[in-house]
């Protein structure tokens, strides 16, 4: 029997390629006769295009505008509102209007295109917007009754800004035409089948006329969920018109200016509570800034609202959320997907409630935290996989939170805490609609995993191979993982929503069981010789007892949830107003860690990204466009900004997860921002708006 792979830190499948420079990212690829592409973008936030003038010698150039779209001119995702190329009306600055390609990058860069506009008045305020992309209502019990039962009602308003994913490899694709009726797109992406579908709609092509191949991808964090469909469309249009391969790679400025970011939001809480700390009512109103087009706003809002009341028991809950249109570049997927925004508000508000009650912040959470058997805001009954109290108690004990809370009082330092949860997989009936598939093909030495789930740094290949190896009873090294190439792999759904391990991992496990049964006593080599090639496929099936009603937003929003608790210590500089996190502990319950090292990597990285969200990362919007679209002035955490991150994994295997696993990718970014802001409050400064920059800290101090 080979050594078990699950639960051990086996070597990352593509690790050697990555440390030797041999891993091939998109910009490392080239093709004969390659052209370079360039996108000409709108310079106004709202208006109509009056004229386009090309002030350059067009010899050797390929020029594409919306007239060149052979299929339907929109980026196929949820709504059909976002054009691939503007026809007449501009809804945001940096919107793509015209595409150019040329074989010489210098010549391409020097081409001048003038666009004249009839500008209209832009709106940047989601609260004043009259156009809603999505409204969500969640009701449990009777909110008025809950408020009437309260001894005290505490209100609060909380704001979060944009955040840029800031993958270190910018967005990029290469489109390679075969004649005029077939195209292959290589690219840095999370979801090859999203791109595949978008290209079919844009080009009017059938399934087999489009092939999408993910290249080694230098980070995604949601930023390569939907946007690659746009850039792939652009490169494909240029390639089909020129008949030559076209490389379209954004530089950092263009990537920051044009691509999606985390939704800003304003979230208001009204909480009814008994003197003894029991919650009687949670009333939440949230406005998310969707930007100019719908993209994924509806589902970001949905996840945000389902998590909005935090991991707390309450009989009377009313949640109202809306995602509104503004004249700014569309906001979209970013790790956490609405939950970091809504749980920031929930957890900062929880400390405000404790303050008003003059009750200990930990005690208030202990009284109200979900236990197995409690029901969530959508009426989901939680099972034994609920670990809210376990993570809270471990974090409090490990950090000596209560002692430090007393000791640091009045020192200019502070310690804060956040308790949070995160649903694994698509929301509600989403997984059923996806109907994802995973295949395993028998090889001479073992098996090859065929999935569209992408490796973007998180360890997809490694983790899925561990699951397959142990299920098959084969060594880890006998398992290969195919490139995510739509010509070869089935649609396993997108690589998002903390779903790859729990959902796709389970499909791989099912396929492996099937393969093992068919092999019987034969070795792969013997089987292939005797019976020829063998590929087995597993498809998602809804676990029987799960139910969800899209119309009423009632039921089991997610199969299972992960649970987390963060504790942060901060120093607030009384001269510069700079906040420095000096210690960070995070306790995570993620079912079972398939690869503890990779899981820890997700938690450490997500925590650092969350610390950036809390205090550093400030997208400055001026006239509807990002004013600081460079790494010089959009600041992400460096080594000097990131404290040591103490990670504790508590295992509570989820029976339906592969080997007990739940999702892990997103949850780490839910907790840091509220913990930091609660620590700043403990240090004596009341901010309710992130990023908590020195300017905001100074303003909060001046107003007290």
């Amino acid at each position, binding site marked *: 029997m080979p050594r078990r792979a699950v*639960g051990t830190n086996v070597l990352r499948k593509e690790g050697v390629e990555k440390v030797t420079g041999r891993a091939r990212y998109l910009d490392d690829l080239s093709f004969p006769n390659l052209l370079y592409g360039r996108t000409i973008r709108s310079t106004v936030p709202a208006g109509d295009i009056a004229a386009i003038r090309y002030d350059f010698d067009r010899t050797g150039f390929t020029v594409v505008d919306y007239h060149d779209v052979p299929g339907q001119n929109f980026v196929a995702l949820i709504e059909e509102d976002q054009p691939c190329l503007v026809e007449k009306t501009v809804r945001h600055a940096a919107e793509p209007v015209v595409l150019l390609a040329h074989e010489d990058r210098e010549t391409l860069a020097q081409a001048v295109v003038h666009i004249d506009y009839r500008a209209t008045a832009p709106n940047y305020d989601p609260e004043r917007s009259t156009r809603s992309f999505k409204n969500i209502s969640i009701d449990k019990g009777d909110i008025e009754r809950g408020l009437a039962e309260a001894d005290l009602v505490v209100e609060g308003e909380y704001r979060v800004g944009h955040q840029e994913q800031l993958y*270190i490899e910018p967005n990029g694709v290469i489109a390679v035409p075969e004649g005029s009726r077939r195209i292959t797109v290589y690219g840095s992406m999370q979801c090859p089948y999203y791109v595949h579908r978008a290209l079919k709609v844009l080009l009017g092509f059938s399934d087999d006329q489009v092939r999408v191949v993910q290249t080694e991808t230098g980070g995604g964090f949601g930023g390569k969920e939907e946007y690659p469909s746009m850039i792939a469309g652009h490169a494909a249009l240029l390639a089909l018109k020129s008949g030559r391969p076209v490389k379209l790679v954004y*530089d*950092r400025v263009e990537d920051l200016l044009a691509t999606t970011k985390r939704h800003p939001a304003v979230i208001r809480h009204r909480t009814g509570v008994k003197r003894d700390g029991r919650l009687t009512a949670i009333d939440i109103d949230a406005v998310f800034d969707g930007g100019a087009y719908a993209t994924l706003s509806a589902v970001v809002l949905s996840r945000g609202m389902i998590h909005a009341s935090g991991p707390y028991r309450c009989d009377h809950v009313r949640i109202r959320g809306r995602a509104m249109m503004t004249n700014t570049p569309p906001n979209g997927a970013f790790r956490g997907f609405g939950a970091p925004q809504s749980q920031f508000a929930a957890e900062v508000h929880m400390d405000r409630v404790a303050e008003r009650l003059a009750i200990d912040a930990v005690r208030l959470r202990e009284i109200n935290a979900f236990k197995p058997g409690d029901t969530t805001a959508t009426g989901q009954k939680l099972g034994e996989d609920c670990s809210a109290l376990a993570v809270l108690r471990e974090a409090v004990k490990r950090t000596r939170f209560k002692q430090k809370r007393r000791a640091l009082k009045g020192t200019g330092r502070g310690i804060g805490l956040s308790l949070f949860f995160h649903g694994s997989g698509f929301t509600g009936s989403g997984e059923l609609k996806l109907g994802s598939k995973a295949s395993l093909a028998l090889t001479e030495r073992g098996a090859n995993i065929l999935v569209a789930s992408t490796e973007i740094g998180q360890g997809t290949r490694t983790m899925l191979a561990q699951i397959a190896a142990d299920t098959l009873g084969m060594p880890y090294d006998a398992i290969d993982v195919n490139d995510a190439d739509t010509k070869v792999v089935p649609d396993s759904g997108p690589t998002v929503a903390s779903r790859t391990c729990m959902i796709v991992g389970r499909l791989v496990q099912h396929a492996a069981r099937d393969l093992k049964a068919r092999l019987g006593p034969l070795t792969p080599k013997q089987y292939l010789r005797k019976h020829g090639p063998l590929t087995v496929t597993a498809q998602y099936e809804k676990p029987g007892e799960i139910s969800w009603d899209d119309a009423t937003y009632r039921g089991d929003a997610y199969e299972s949830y992960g649970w987390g608790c963060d504790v942060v210590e901060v120093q607030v500089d009384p001269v510069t107003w700079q906040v420095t996190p000096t210690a960070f502990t995070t306790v995570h*319950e993620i079912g079972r860690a398939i690869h503890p090292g990779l899981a820890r*990597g997700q938690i450490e990285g997500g925590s*650092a990204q969350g610390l950036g969200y809390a205090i550093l990362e400030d997208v400055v919007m001026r006239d509807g466009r990002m004013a600081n679209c460079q790494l010089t002035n959009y600041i992400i955490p460096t080594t000097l900004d990131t404290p040591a991150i103490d990670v504790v994994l508590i*295992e509570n295997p989820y029976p339906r997860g592969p080997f007990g696993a739940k999702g892990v990718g997103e949850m780490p970014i839910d907790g840091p921002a509220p913990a930091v802001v609660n620590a700043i409050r403990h240090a004596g400064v009341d901010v309710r708006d992130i990023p908590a920059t020195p300017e905001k800290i100074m303003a909060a101090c001046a107003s007290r």
Partner: protein
Amino acid sequence: MRFTLNGKRASVRAHPMARLLDVLRETCHLTGTKEGCGEGECGACTVLIDGLPVNSCLVPFAQVDGARVTTIEGLGGKHPLQHAFVEFGGAQCGICTPGMIMAAVALGPKPSTPEMQTGLAGNLCRCTGYSAIYRSIRAANRGTASLKARTTTGRKKR
């Protein structure tokens, strides 16, 4: 321009004001060195010139005349740091990794944590939160990175 590239004498024709990054990637076909920002902020393009780390996106090619240039390819895949970055999770998406490893080479033997923090402050990583990078560097210096899988498990729920 004549210079030493990864231990071998090289004679390369390119514009003297071309970015060293482009000359390495496009003229010399050494694509291990990456571009993340093009303005010297992210460090993905870090290479060594005469043993010192530089952002190759900010170095005009003329400046390497007669110098020793070392890229990730020059480490040959056997360097203890390369082993350790695979084994201890220092590489996730891998795009910052070549630059990070070159910057780590320049730290010299047995750097302290503050020395690592200062020496790597010009190299951005969005995946790891840097902790696994420090663990990798420490392991490389201890000589414990063996490219063999180790067994650890998470803690049991009590």
